[in-house]
């Protein structure tokens, strides 16, 4: 995201910057004091000062050290920038902007505060622009603008994708050329037959048979050639598509988690499946056919010109008209189909709503109303559809007629020429055959621009993924480190979006073998700390040390292989229980797996299932209860024998027996391993060596359970509240029981 805009010169002069005082951030704001929209002014940040321009003047200027607070506050549909000077006791609003600049200004404000604190690390704006800054077009989820990039870049990208199939493409052209030549030859042969044999009546039945035989042979040859050509196109397209899909899948696995979470959930899937299919379609339907058409047209026109220039001109004169008409209607056609699509979409949504919410509809007795609503939608859709079909049914024949109107003129001129002796009948027939050959391809070519644009967009989206560099990669001399278990957070700050920190200035030293319980209200950053330890994200500020090494210096794969993870949402792959547990260590023996299961208290229930360890657990392991899935996850973690264990406890309470079994299993798992646990159960809290309470983005309290209870601080409140709830629950159960 762009944070350094070009400041107009006369404004820059107003700032009167000192030598060496560079502008670090410059972002526009677009709502003026009176509420009107437009380029109202700029917010400029240098390492020493903050300026705000309004129109042609300088509205505000401060030294950064004078400001206690520089904050971007989002409101409804707009945002304001407010500052608070140390010497004043009120906050002041200084700029106002629409959502277009909101994120930018948040980053700039954060950047300004950082510079004020003499932190020269630049703000990393990872978010992408929604529209191209140069041409204003919407970006289809890519970093670069497909239009602005220029033709050459697009062609280069396309070539990069297909260059491995050079030979295949060459064959494609050869096939196309072959069929075209055959196509062009047939009228020539016909002419020969008509002129030399039929006309002069000098042939025999033998000659007629020969003609029919040759024509048959030629036609069969043509058919075979077409089949081969199409088969080749399709197979090439499919292979190319598969290749791209494979590359994308691998790339997505390589890329950092932030790349995936930044996008809408279905979007990456769409790119891998639909965008690649678009390329495939382009290759199959468009690319090869395009060349066939061009060769055919060029060939036909060349031959026609060599035969009679006037007639050639006459036959093509109507084509520009058709071209103009179809271009003029293209917009209209597009609008009609879009409208139809919108209506059909409405019907589908309504259907889906009613059918899945049928229970609600029935219980409120709204069937009649829903029926009426649906009836109306159906009628609207049918009306639109009918109009469209009539339109298309009327337009298409008219277009075809106009396009081929030239043929009548050709026949007229040709007829006169034949009667006048300048042309033979056969030649005329040949000529009109070639003229017809023109119209088909030309009509098809009008679709070309749209298909090419669609292809380019898909191409951009694919290359966007393939060209992306993973954020978290192994450094040059990544250390292959055997984890011992000392973890240290040194002044760590982090935010998923750089301007909104989730953790600030975290300092924590953990000895090997210690079990740390992370406690705090929801959303305070516990899962974030764990994400950082798992090296799924990198810290914005400060250092995270593992055994004294900066985590960024360690080899990622080696590091991950020594981690054990038991998460809240137990994700089991579709597969057998055996495969799921083995996931952590594919070469584990069956005995090792049984040991791990026993330690996780899972062996017993697994044996009770009909297929034992070979039981198939469907998507998300549906056939198992929550407690059973948790225990399988624990077995998986134990099998790995991890040096560092991450535990994200499920908040939902299970039945007491499962609770106990899981508690015991966890105890066995965490013994002697450095563990970070997001703890909710009292039993886990008791078992922890130290508890870390996170409140308001930083560590509020650290200590053992008893120490923190004595403090009567946040931890105390959390624990007693939970005890209260439990006591009330038990009293209620007893009352019900009695």
């Amino acid at each position, binding site marked *: 995201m762009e944070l350094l805009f070009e400041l107009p010169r006369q404004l820059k002069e107003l700032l009167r910057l000192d030598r060496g005082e560079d502008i670090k951030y410059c972002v526009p704001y677009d*709502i003026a004091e009176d*509420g*009107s*929209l*437009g380029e109202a002014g700029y917010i400029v940040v240098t390492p020493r000062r903050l300026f705000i321009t309004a129109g042609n003047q300088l509205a505000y200027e401060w030294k950064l050290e004078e400001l206690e607070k520089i904050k971007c506050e989002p*409101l*409804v*549909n*707009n945002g*304001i920038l*407010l500052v*608070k000077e140390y010497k*004043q*006791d*009120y*906050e*002041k*609003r200084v700029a*106002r902007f*629409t*959502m*277009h600049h*909101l994120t930018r200004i948040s980053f700039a404000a954060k950047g300004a505060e950082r510079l004020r604190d003499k932190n020269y690390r630049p703000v990393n704006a990872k978010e992408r622009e*929604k*529209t191209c800054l140069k041409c*204003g*077009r*919407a970006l*289809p989820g890519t970093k670069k603008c497909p239009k602005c990039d220029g033709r050459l870049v697009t062609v280069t990208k396309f070539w990069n994708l297909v260059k491995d199939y050079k030979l295949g493409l060459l064959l494609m052209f050869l096939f196309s050329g072959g069929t075209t030549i055959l196509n062009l030859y047939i009228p020539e042969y016909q002419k020969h037959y008509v002129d030399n044999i039929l006309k002069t009546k000098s042939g025999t039945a033998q000659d007629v048979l020969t003609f029919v035989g040759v024509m048959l042979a030629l036609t069969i040859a043509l058919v075979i050639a077409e089949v081969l050509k199409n088969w080749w196109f399709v197979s090439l397209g499919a292979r190319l598509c598969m290749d791209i899909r494979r590359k994308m899948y691998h790339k997505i696995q390589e890329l950092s988690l932030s790349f995936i979470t930044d996008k809408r959930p279905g979007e990456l899937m769409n790119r891998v499946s639909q965008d690649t299919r678009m390329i495939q379609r382009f290759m199959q339907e468009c690319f090869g056919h395009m060349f066939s058409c061009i060769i055919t047209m060029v060939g036909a026109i060349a031959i026609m010109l060599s035969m009679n220039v006037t007639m050639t001109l006459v036959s093509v004169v109507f084509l520009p008209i058709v071209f103009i008409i179809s271009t003029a209607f293209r917009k209209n056609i597009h*609008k009609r189909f*879009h*409208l139809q699509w*919108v209506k059909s*979409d409405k019907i589908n949504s309504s259907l889906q709503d009613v059918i899945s919410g049928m229970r609600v509809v029935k219980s409120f007795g709204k069937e009649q109303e829903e029926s009426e609503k649906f009836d109306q939608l159906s009628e609207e859709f049918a009306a639109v559809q009918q109009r469209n079909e009539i339109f298309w049914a009327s337009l298409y024949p008219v277009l075809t007629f106009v396009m081929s109107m030239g043929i009548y003129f050709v026949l007229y001129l040709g007829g006169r020429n034949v009667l006048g002796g300048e042309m033979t009948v056969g030649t005329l027939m040949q000529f009109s055959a070639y003229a017809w050959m023109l119209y088909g391809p030309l009509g098809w070519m009008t679709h070309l621009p749209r298909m090419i*644009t*669609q292809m380019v*967009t898909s191409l951009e989206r694919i290359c966007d993924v393939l060209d992306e560099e993973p954020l978290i990669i192994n450094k040059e001399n990544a250390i292959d480190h055997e984890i011992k278990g000392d973890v240290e957070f040194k002044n760590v700050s982090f935010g998923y979006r750089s301007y909104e920190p989730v953790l600030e200035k975290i300092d924590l030293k953990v000895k090997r073998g210690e079990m740390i319980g992370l406690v705090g209200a929801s959303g305070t950053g516990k899962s974030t700390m764990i994400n950082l330890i798992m090296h799924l994200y990198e810290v914005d500020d400060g250092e995270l040390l593992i055994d004294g090494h900066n985590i960024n210096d360690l080899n990622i794969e080696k590091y991950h292989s020594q981690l054990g993870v038991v998460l809240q949402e137990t994700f089991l792959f579709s597969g057998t229980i055996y495969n799921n547990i083995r996931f952590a260590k594919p070469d584990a023996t069956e005995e090792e797996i049984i040991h791990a299961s026993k330690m996780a208290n899972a062996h017993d229930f697994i044996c009770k299932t009909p297929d034992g360890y070979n039981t198939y657990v469907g998507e998300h392991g549906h056939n198992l209860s929550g407690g059973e899935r948790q225990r399988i996850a624990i077995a998986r973690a134990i099998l790995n024998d991890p040096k560092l264990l991450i535990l994200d406890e499920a908040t939902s309470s299970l039945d*007491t*027996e499962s*609770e*106990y079994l899981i508690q015991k299993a966890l105890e066995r798992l965490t013994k002697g391993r450095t563990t970070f646990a997001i703890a909710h159960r*009292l*039993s886990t809290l*008791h078992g922890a060596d130290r508890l870390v309470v996170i409140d308001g983005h930083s560590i509020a309290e650290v200590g053992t359970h*008893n120490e923190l*209870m*004595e403090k009567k601080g946040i931890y*105390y*409140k959390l*624990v*007693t*509240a939970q*005890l*209260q709830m*439990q*006591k009330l629950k*038990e009293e209620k159960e007893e009352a019900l029981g009695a």
Partner: protein
Amino acid sequence: MSGKVKKTLAGTEKDHADPEEFDLEKMEKETEEMLRLRFITKENAVFERTEGGFVSMEIEGEIYPRVQVYRSFPFTDPDAYISIREPDEKAKEIGVIKNLRKDVSKETRQMLEEQLRLRYFTPKIEKIINIKDEYGFAYFDVLTDHGACRFTIHMGGGSVVNLSDTRLMITDLDGNRFEIVDVTKLSAPELKKLDLFL
């Protein structure tokens, strides 16, 4: 099993003198407070505009150097139940003005309306100059009551919402929202351009 859990409870109880009573009372008090709907009127509160362009309030002895002003029903009843809240992230409600037109003085109303204009920024489209659609996105060029504006929306559902039969809300790619108060008041060519989205 439940016996074991009870023992743990007992274990903690021994260390501290009656934490339960204290906690329960406090929790109940807090939940009661959350239920309370305190009405603010010109009788019990004084509002003042701060130098920074915000509004401060004093109510029944409590002083708030800056308060935030929220509408509870921005579309259906914009002047009723104006919620006055603390300015931090939690934005706890201090009180509610039942009717902005009746319950406070004219000066206060103007002050608060200024704040509401700041908070709620929804340009109303007065004239549609042009709509161009290209490859799944529509580029609008319009005139609003806040000036001329251009924005881009994603075609394909969700961007244009019917607040009522004649009232539209259009959301662009950045999240900006634009309102068309009454679709029927638009001219015929404008309606035609908008046709795709209705």
